[in-house]
């Protein structure tokens, strides 16, 4: 029984490594790891790089990182799931991050979020079924002086209203169709 489990695990890892051999991005990731001398304490840096390259951290990728750093997969998975910044699911083509910091909140970020939820029919952390828009919330992006702020595809936009946010999301839909 134990032997089977071990073999199964082995199988998954070698499948992940096989998969890795055909993809350039794994080479870039490995070069980055080499630059950091495969140091186990730089795991979070490497996961940042991996997410930057692949968009999200899928199981294969986590196994790859674990084997290269000689860390147990449980440890890598544990770290990847602990931090909010890492996502295990692929994101949509566009991302919309509504800042829910205190300053944005007292200036009506909750109403902006509600309007976007109504327009896209998704909740924060979800992606629309057509894979166009991912809706996220942030704890605070530090743009409190220009609250309420929304980040559309990594562009911080100041003084948003529910109407402006819905317009922006509608615009994304039109450009892509």
């Amino acid at each position, binding site marked *: 029984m134990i032997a089977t489990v071990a073999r199964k695990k082995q199988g998954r890892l070698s499948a992940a490594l096989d998969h890795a051999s055909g993809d350039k991005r794994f080479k870039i990731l490995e070069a980055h790891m080499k630059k950091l001398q495969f140091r186990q304490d730089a795991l979070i840096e490497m*996961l940042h790089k991996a997410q930057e390259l692949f968009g999200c951290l899928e199981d294969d990728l986590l196994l790859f990182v674990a084997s290269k750093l000689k860390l147990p997969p449980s440890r890598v998975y544990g770290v990847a799931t602990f*931090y909010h910044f890492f996502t295990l699911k692929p994101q949509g083509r566009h991302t919309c991050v509504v800042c829910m910091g*205190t300053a944005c909140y007292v200036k009506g970020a909750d109403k902006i979020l509600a309007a976007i939820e109504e327009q896209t029919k998704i909740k924060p952390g979800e992606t629309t079924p057509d894979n166009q828009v991912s809706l996220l919330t942030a704890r605070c992006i530090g743009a409190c002086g220009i609250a309420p702020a929304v980040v559309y595809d990594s562009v911080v936009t100041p003084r948003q209203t529910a109407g402006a946010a819905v317009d922006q999301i509608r615009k994304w839909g039109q450009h892509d169709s």
Partner: protein
Amino acid sequence: MIHNDLLQIKARELAGRKKITLRCCMAAGCMSSGARSVKEQLDKAVAEAGLQDQVEVRGVGCMKLCCEGPLVQADPQNALYIKVTPENAPSLVAALQGGKTGVAQTDPDAAFFKRQLFIVLANSGVIDPERIESYIAADGYEALHEVLNEMAPKDVVAVMVQSGLRGRGGAGFPTGLKWGTVAKSPGAKKYVICNADEGDPGAFMDRSVLESDPHCVLEGMAIAAYAVGADQGFIYVRAEYPLAISRLQIAIKQAKQMGLLGASIFESPFSFNVDLRIGAGAFVCGEETALMASVEGKRGTPRPRPPFPAESGLWGSPTLINNVETFANVPPIYRRGAEWFAGIGAGKSKGTKVFALAGKIKNTGLIEVPMGTPLSAIVEEMGGGAPNGGQIKAVQTGGPSGGCIPARHLDTPVDYESLGKLGSIMGSGGMIVMDDQTNMVEIARFFMEFCMDESCGKCAPCRAGTVQMHHLLDKIIRRQATASDLAKLEELCDMVKNTSLCGLGQTAPNPTLSTLRFFRHEYEELLQADFAGPPGSGDLNHQRAPAAT
């Protein structure tokens, strides 16, 4: 690099200054309002007018009045232009030669600026954060040179003790005492960590300092490292601050190239390296033991103290952890002396404090005031009061760990003790103003939801307690709670506060407790009479009653 090189760089930089400078704010707030293209257009307009020899367009850090950005300041004209657009550029350049411009201005001598006293932010909005020469021209790295050449580590600690600086991360622990403890701890390897994990929602002081004056923080860290005997430093920055990260990377690279970081700095035996560690979005990592776990590449969960990091920290070695603003205070203290610093402030709180003023207030932005300034001076004089004729109801300090101070206590001076007495904390410096339209129970629920989500789950009081408190607050807002629920909430607050493992849990009930203390009527107005809730409202006694009869 020797001292002479430093002086030469400074002389060259000052000699290269032009007659007129146009300073453009390039911090995150103004950048998101299009400051980069404003600067590009100004550069172009200056070139077109043939004024390259007379006018310097300088990208600088935060110019403080964030709500009016993008900001451009012309010197020596002393004109501060607000809400500048790229199209305004030619007319601004024309105005330098006596022409007229339609661009709105604000008074650079208004109360918002006049009541400020700059120590930490002295270079912010003045120097170019991406050029080390600009920092050196403002006497940068002079303090490090003096410390390395003329002082023994124990004298460096003594000066810090004398200055009376207290940690700016929130708790206000005396910095000199912390340095002394780390210096005395035995160990061949020691570390210095700069806590730049500014997770408190509504606070952006650390981001602004890192974006505006990164070298000041590096210099402060190097002085601290010399004092405690460390040779390796880490800066732990939030991933949400991409601009701060890139400016830090530039600053570290430049300092290394000039020999101000690395081996034998200023030809002394002292070596010091700094590495960046990027956070990944976990509020609990602002807690020092959790932060160290995260630097080691692990899940950011706190551990019990003692042992304190000063004795056993990163990889079991003695570790000094200070906040960004604390380190930014260090170079000025050694440049101008401990007596000068100790002469500013009030009571046991010395120096200044940077606040991020935001929320329902006219002037939002960054302010630095001497400790002991009354809240009313900050909110009413500097902030300009509530916009659109509203009434200020409360001021929230300390984020999810702090409390709400009601308007009737606005005469309170800002120092560690006075804010503590009101059930709030100084915190890292977020100051959110709330007006009469803000529902305080909803604010309490907002912060509780935050703590509930951010609880790391290691200890039960915080993991389960925050969920239950959030549930009760939610029930109150839905008008389904009774007086016994309110009593239960207070009991839970007390329990979580006293039994949680780390600061997150211990302070999570603060916003609820302080709103209960000052705005209890708002809670009571939402309560149902006991046993009168609608059927199935979740009250156990209510549901059991029919079965028993």
